[in-house]
Each structure stands twice: as C-alpha cells, then as structure tokens.
C-alpha cells in the first residue's frame, strides 16, 4: 500500500463558523493505481490533492505514506518525504520562467545533490524520451502550452517518484494537447508502474484512470 488517509478533516474558520473543506475523507491507494478525482468547483479536489502531496496541512485525521505517519512528522521530514517520492504537475505548469527547459529539468536534481555528470545524463535522457531535445535552450515562455506541460511532466518524472499528483494537468490545453498528455500518463502508469492521482473536470480524461473518486462539498460520494 502506498498511502492511506483515515478520517481526514480540514476546515477554515469564517466569522465564527467552521467551513469544512474536507470532511471525513478515507482513502487507500495501492502502488500502480491511476486514480481520477472528480467533482464540481469548490468540492475540495485540489485541497485533497494538496493534502496528499503534503503541500497543505489538515486539521484532523491520520495520513500514512509508505508506512510513515505524515500527521506526526515535522515539516522538514515531510518535505524530505515528498521531495523523494512525489512529483507534481500543475494546471498552469509552474515552470520557472527564468530558467531554460534544460535547467528546469535539472532543478529537482540540484536540490537532491546529485553529481553533475549524473545530472547531465538524466536530463539528456528525459529530453530524449519526451522528444524535446531541440527545445532545451528555450525559455518556457517561448513554448506552447502543450510543450510547457510536457516539460512539466518531464520535470515531475526526473526524480523517479513513486507517485505523480496532477492538478488539472490539461485544464489550459486544447483537446489535441490534452489527448497527448493523457496518453503519456497512461503509458507511464502501464509501462513503468508509476502511481498517478489526477484531478480533472473531464469525464473523458477521468476514463483513463483505473478508479474514480467523486467529491461534493468536501465529502466523498
């Protein structure tokens, strides 16, 4: 088992009233799964994803990731945990505008203190695999949305994560680009066994997954 959420609650205090963002979420994810989270706007999809990715905290409940109790870990260990095992893909890509494609891919490796020669090899490998070698010296703003998201996925993958969290990865893309990215995810899941959890609005994209979780007002339905 990769991760397990037990009775997760998250709320904000608004004018003396508790507004629940997540309400009693229970979730088990096995390695190699491809899960789609669906639901209308404001149903807590992104919040759930952030909690799973340890980018956000929760107020109540328990969260185990690879047999570590995330809820009792200090922030430093938590960040080490997600640095090591989780890759993120965002709707608006969140590439670093000041860096070239190549440098963007290199960035996570730098933080992992991987040697220069090894870094070069990993980056070249990734560029090759995604067929973006010709784009390596361009800056993100010089690329189309689809290409940027390709780089985003490549960057998420380069650290060899066990889990990829994708927050509406195709939200800013046209249908053809979406198709490409989803095919890529499917391939990664099938061939390399990478666990993927994606948030999406689209039934079609959700169908790529092996399991669909529906949320409404912070509750699993």
């Amino acid at each position: 088992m990769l991760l397990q959420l037990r009775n997760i609650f998250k709320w904000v205090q608004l004018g003396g009233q508790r507004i629940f963002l997540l309400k009693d979420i229970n979730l088990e994810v096995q390695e190699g799964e491809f899960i789609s989270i669906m639901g209308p706007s404001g149903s807590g999809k992104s919040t759930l994803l952030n909690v799973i990715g340890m980018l956000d905290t929760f107020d109540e409940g328990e969260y185990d990731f690879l047999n570590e109790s995330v809820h009792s870990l200090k922030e430093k260990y938590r960040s080490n945990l997600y640095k090591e095992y989780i890759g993120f893909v965002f709707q608006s890509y969140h590439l670093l505008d000041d860096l070239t494609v190549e440098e963007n891919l290199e960035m996570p490796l730098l933080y992992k203190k991987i040697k220069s020669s090894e870094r070069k090899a990993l980056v070249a490998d990734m560029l090759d695999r995604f067929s973006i070698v010709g784009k390596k010296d361009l800056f993100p703003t010089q690329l189309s949305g689809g290409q940027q998201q390709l780089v985003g996925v490549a960057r998420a993958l380069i650290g060899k994560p066990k889990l990829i969290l994708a927050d509406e990865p195709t939200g800013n893309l046209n249908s053809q680009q979406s198709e490409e990215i989803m095919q890529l995810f499917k391939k990664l899941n099938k061939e390399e066994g990478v666990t993927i959890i994606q948030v999406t609005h689209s039934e079609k994209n959700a169908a790529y997954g092996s399991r669909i979780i529906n949320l409404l007002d912070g509750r699993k339905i």
Partner: protein
Amino acid sequence: MLKNHLKLSLRNLWKNRLLSSLNLLGLSIGIGSVLTLLFSVYAYYVADANIPNQENIVYLKTHLTDGNSYNEVTYPLLDKILSTSPEIKAGTHMHGWGNIWLESDNKEFQKTTTYADPEFFEVFGLPLKYGNQSDALIEKYSIVLTDKVSKQLFGEENPVGKNLIAADTLNLNITGVLEPISPYSSFRLGVLLPNTILEDNPIFIRQTNWDNSFSPIFLKLDEKADVLQFQKKVNQLVVENYADPRTISRIELMPYEEMRMDTVPVAKIIINGNIAAAFFVLLIVLVNLLNLNTSTMFRRTKDIAVRKILGGTKKGVIVQFCLENGILVLLSILISGGLFLGVLLPKMNDVFGADFGEISFSFSNDYPVILGAIALGILVTLIVGVLPTLRFISLPISKGIKGKIDSAKSNFLLRNSFVILQFTIAILFICVAIILNSQIGFMKSADLGFDRENVIAANIDLDYKNIDAAKSSFNALLDELKANPYVENVSASQAVPSDYYFNYSTFYDPNTDVDVRIRRSYADDGYLKTLKIPMALGRDFDATLDNSESKSVIINRSAMKAFGWTSIEGKRLNYRNDDSDGFAIVGVMEDFNYQDLQNSVEPLVHYYNDEKDLAHHRYLSVRVMEGKEKEIQNIMNAAFSKVNSRKSFSQELLSQKVSGQYRLIEGMLKTVNVVAMMTIFISCLGMFGLISFMAKRRIKEIGIRKVLGAGVLKIVVLLSKDYILLVGIGALIAFPIAWYVMNAWLGSFAYSISIQWWMFVLAAVIAILITAFTLGIQAVKSAMVNPVKSLRTE
C-alpha cells in the same frame, strides 16, 4: 549550486534591467556620498594619529570672571610650572608672531611661522623625516620645515644643514624636516623656529610679563600625575604671581585631544553633521533597496513555492537573493569609488578646503576606508537580502503557488513604514536646507549698522621694503583720491568690519569700580563717515587736533552701556593700577556689527591714528559713487604697483568681504543641498520601482475598473494617492524634528531668523511635487494599458 545561483542572479538582474539600473544608480550615488562623508570624518580622526600619548598632553585655558575664556596664559607661567612641578615631563610655548619672510635662491616666501621651545618635540613627539628631535630647536638660529615646505623648496632632497635667510638678516640653519601632517590636524605648521629668536624682539619681550595673557602653553604630564591636584597647583601659581589675578576666575587644564573641537567649534558641527548625514543617506539607500526587494518578492512568491516543491530549501532562496543583491552592491561600490575619487572628493575640497585644508586619498594609507566600504557592502547585502525574504519564505506552499499574499490583512501604514521613513529623512533635509538658506540670506542682507555698499576695502599691510618711500606714495594716493569727484570719503584704519583683531583691554571706572573688557582697534577721522556709522553722542575724531587726539577714544554704545553710563561727560578710559590719566572719551558711535552675526556687538573702542601713518594701518577704505568702483580700483592698483613690497596689493568690495564671513556656512549649505537632493532622488527611485510593481500587481484591478468605465485620471489618482499620503505623513514626522534641530542651531547665532510655517509647507510641497511627478509617469503608463490585454492573463 553556487554557479547555478550566480547564473540565475545575473539572469534575474538582466531581466529586470530597469529596476536593476535604478537600484545601481541609487546605490552608487548613495554609497559614493556616504564614502565621501565618512572619509572626511576618518581623515579628521586620524589626522592627529602621529602625536603619541595625546592623553597626557594638556593646554591651559584662562577663564575670566566675566565669563569669557581664551587659550592663552602669561608667558612666564610656563617656566614657573616647569621649575616647581616634577609631574610635568615637558612643556612648550607655541607662538605665532607674524609670519617671517624667508629667502632661498633669491626667492622670498612667507610660511605659517610658529615659535616653540626645544621641548616641543618632547611634548608632541611629532616624527621627523630628517634630523633629530632632541636637538632640532636647541640652537637659536635653527629652523624646522614641514614636509610640504621642504618639498616646495628642495624637492625630494634632504635639506638638513642648508641655510635660509630670514627677514633679510638672520641666517637660519635647517635642522629638521617633519613627516607629512594631515591638513585636518590640529597643527597648522609651515616652519618651526626656536622661541629664543622671539626673545630678541623688544616688542615681544615687553609682553612677557605677569600681566599679559597672550601665550599658548602646552604641557606633557607624567602618566601617574594627579591632574586635579596639578590644576590646583597651577591656579595657586596664578594667584601668587599674576599682576592682577582678580579678573581670572581659574586656569583649566584642557586635554589636547579636545583642542580642535574647542578652537574651531564649527568643526564639531561639521563632523557630527557628516556622521549624521552619512547615517541618514545609508539608511535611505538601505530602505530603498528593502522597498524594491520587497516588491519583487511579491512577484517571486510563486517562484519560491515552486522551488520548495522541487525540493529547494529556505536557505537556498536566501542565498540566491543575497547573491543577487551582492552583485549589485559590489558593482555599485566600484562605481561609487570612481564617483568618490573623481567627483565628490574634489567637490568637498572645493567647499571646505579653504577653511580646513584639502585632503586626498591614497590607497596605501587609507586602505581602512576600502575595507570599511567592503564591510559596509556586505552588511548592506545581508540586510537587504535577508529581511525581505523572511516575510515570504514561511508562506504555505499551497498559498504561495497561487501567487496570493493576503496584503489586505497587513496594515497599509506598517507595510509602508520604510517609505515613510525615507520621506521623513528627505523632507528633514529639505527643511534644513530651506532654513539654512533663509538664515544665510538674512545674514547677508541684514542691517549691520553701517553701509557696506559702494565701499572698496584695500589691504595695505604689505610688508614694504622701504616704509618711508611707501608712505610718501601712499600719501600722494590719499590726496589723489580725495580730489577725485567720484570719491565720497576715504579712511585708513587698522580694521574693517569682518576683520577686527581679537585684541582686548580691560578698563575700569574709578567711580563705580566696574571693570569692562573692551575690544580695541585704531581708526582715523574718516572711518565712521566712510562706513556711514552714525554718532550717538559727542564728536568724531578730528585730524586738526592731531596732538591731543592721540589721547582721545571713541567707544560704541555697548561699551557705554557696559559701564552703566548715560552720558560721557567727563568720562575717561582708565586702566586699573595705572597712574596716567587714561584716554578722553570724545564720542560714542552707534553699535555696528563688526563681526559676523553669530556674535553680538561687544564693547568696542577706537583709538585715533592719523590716516597718513601707513605703518599702523591695515586697510584703506574708499566710499565711491555707485558704478565708479572699477575706475577707483584702477587708480589704486596703479598707485600700489609702483611701491616695492613683499606682499602684493589686493582689494575687494566691503560688501563681498562681509559676505565672505559666511563662506563656511555656505559650504555647509551646499553640502546639505546636495544631500537633500540626493535623498529625495534616491527615495523617488525607490518609489518609481514600488509603484511599477504595485501597478503590475493591480493590473487586473485596473483592467476591471477601466472596463467598468474609470478614466485614466481616476486610475492615476487611485495608484498615487496612497503614496502622496505617505509623503504627507513623512512630512508631519519630519517637521518637529527639523524645527527642534534647526531652532537649536539658530540659537547659536546672536542674530537669527525665526522659523516660519511656510518653510515647512515649502519643504512638503517640494517633496510632494517631485513624488507626484515620479508616480505620475508610471501611473499614467499603467492606466493607459488596454484592459483587454491585462484581463486576458491565464
């Protein structure tokens, strides 16, 4: 990783070219002026570093019972002290007694001449470049040169053993050359001669009694000496030996280290002012960078969040940011170094060189300044690199990634306290400049009790080679001037306003037993007429009464008041313990300001001297018809060109001479003006950067407002009004501080303006106008953007 940081830093700086260059410009100017200001302070403090054991050197200060004080005592006191006090290791007089004319290679020159005792070197330990300290001033006909004078005369050669002819007759043997002395040192030396030469001078010897306090004395105390005990002893010696100890309240032992501040009080103001100005400029520069950096942080929150997700640490973010700022700071230190050496230091020498000497920078001697600048740079980098990141670094990633900061939560004033601080300082400087300006304007145009316009003041104290020949041509000139229809009055005198000697005598009134210390000078019968000084009582001098007139004096109204007289009927000026019947007071002149307006009008007495008596006059004053100054000056030039003298003839308008008294204050004004301009300039640079980021952050808001129908003007006002408010708050804080400081400063003037409300309003208006202009440019630009474009993002 470091390479990566460096690459990113350069790329970031280049990406924000406009901001980076604004930063660089502000930093360079700021650090350049801080460097200049602090260098002058540094030069001042190290100037006396070549005098060892200064803490054991003292000088004697005489306090009078009337509250006055001076740094001289009677001449024989030194010997008395030396012979009775074992706790004194050495002591010396240090007299100026006119600058002696020296001759070398048939060229004559005059240098600042100081007479000292052989123990001079034991007291001060000034190192010699050539010669021995122990015997340099032993021989009577010896002379010690400063390094500067030696270089002028002999170049790099060692001149010890050579001879100089002094005053046409004395053959002086050069016995030593001093190591270079900083122009900011307490020593203003040119050549040093043994005191024994002075003792040959009959006029000098006549002063060396227990009556006349004219001799500066310096002592070196044993480290173990009980200073207070010794001071008591000195005062005891005064009581025992002084001819008239009653006017002396006490003799004070003053530490030598305080002498520069004591004798030139304005030096203290300038040095403290420089420190304060440097501090404020530095503060402004810092605040400016903090402001700009904080505003870039808003843009970078997303960046930081992404980096954290990818595994970046807080430390990494801070290092990156520090590096970026470090590059900027280092670059600006280099630029400011050039600015300092090429522009600012020469400018400062222009302003203060005439009064304090010109200082120069040398890498070998002044390397502490360079080290200081680098240390300062590192400090600045750390502050501006770390502080702005602190607020953003702990932002939760899930918030940062959206680039959202709860700006509404934090207090507007608190958030902009840096901007307020900046403008407080800038407005403070503007206020100071305005008030300084008004005071100088007031002093230059104030009614001084005499008419300074249309008067030529010529210096006629020229060291004539043949005094009799000079006298006859002078008298011929007097006749010619008097016959000239453009000349209204002519006068020869010892002094003119702005240049009265510090020469005092104490007189007393036998009827009331009142002692009055009166400043004295000599004038002829034309002096009051030429300067249009009105008589209050009695009559002016009368040249036709020549013989008896030498026993007549005219006093000013202050002197009459000091004696408590209402008329001068039968009054005389008498010395205490003097059997002669003193001087007849024939008239009282109205008070006029013969000193600058920092001083009030002190009691003054004029003795009579006939105008023809060239040797006793220093000035020839001529009142001419308006517009005819040039013609008369030509006549005088022509007359003096025929006279053989060591000094060359010079003349200027009295009005200029009087204004010249305020040269130093005007120098201070110039500095304040520059600093004020700079602070407001740097503040505006920061403001410019701030509002451009503000506009970027609010680009959607602006777009929405425009879609809803807001005009360009509305948007400009929206963007700027908060900042104008900040300037206003800055002004309100600055006003009381400016008032307090300047009121205290004006208090040191006997005549001063009172601070008016409009001065503050003017300062605020200037600041607001400049700010509004800076804001306007950027705000209009943002307001003109097509809303379709700005709303399309994402």
